[in-house]
């Protein structure tokens, strides 16, 4: 039954990957990769249960953190054009 969950999540990942490859704008690709990362977290958790090795859950937690930070970093880079200046992204945009 865990195998069914694995296959279902794999199909969802494939759909998100198709959108990431097709996506007309950059933001479509970032959105698809963010969704793909969430599904990867779920896939790692289910695979940990499937293999009987619940240590995989730590990997899933770390992957969720890295996915979030990566998405925010890419979005900030393409919004501001710079990763260094933290003051520009706050208020005061024209």
């Amino acid at each position: 039954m865990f195998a069914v969950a694995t296959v279902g999540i794999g199909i969802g990942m494939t759909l998100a990957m198709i959108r990431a490859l097709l996506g007309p704008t950059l933001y479509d690709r970032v959105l698809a990769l963010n969704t793909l990362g969430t599904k990867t977290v779920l896939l790692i958790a289910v695979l940990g249960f499937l293999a009987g090795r619940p240590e995989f859950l730590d990997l899933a937690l770390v992957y969720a953190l890295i996915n979030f930070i990566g998405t925010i970093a890419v979005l900030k880079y393409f919004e501001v054009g710079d990763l260094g200046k933290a003051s520009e992204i706050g208020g005061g945009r024209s």
Partner: protein
Amino acid sequence: MVWDVLSWLSILGGLFFILVGGIGVLRFPDVYTRLHAAGMTDTMGAGLVLVGLSIQSGLSFQSGEWLITVRLLMIWAFLLFTSPIATHALARAALHGKVEPIRVDVGGGDA
């Protein structure tokens, strides 16, 4: 036995939401509408799958399985915090990057 059925129902519901979210991400016409499908995957899909897995792992203190449940709930809480932040940042970046939302005339004439 009852808990097994509950956990499988929850996991299957999560899979349903994941598949529907994937189809929505593939078929919606716009970034801003695709955000909706992606958010559904992040909240309901991930939440139901993780709740089903934590029902599977149980809460027994002797064999240390409660730690697995705590980790699953930590992943769930973390996704619950980060998914709206990422969605908001993506929508704002797309709007800042001059991506126009599509506009559909709904019925009536004067808008």
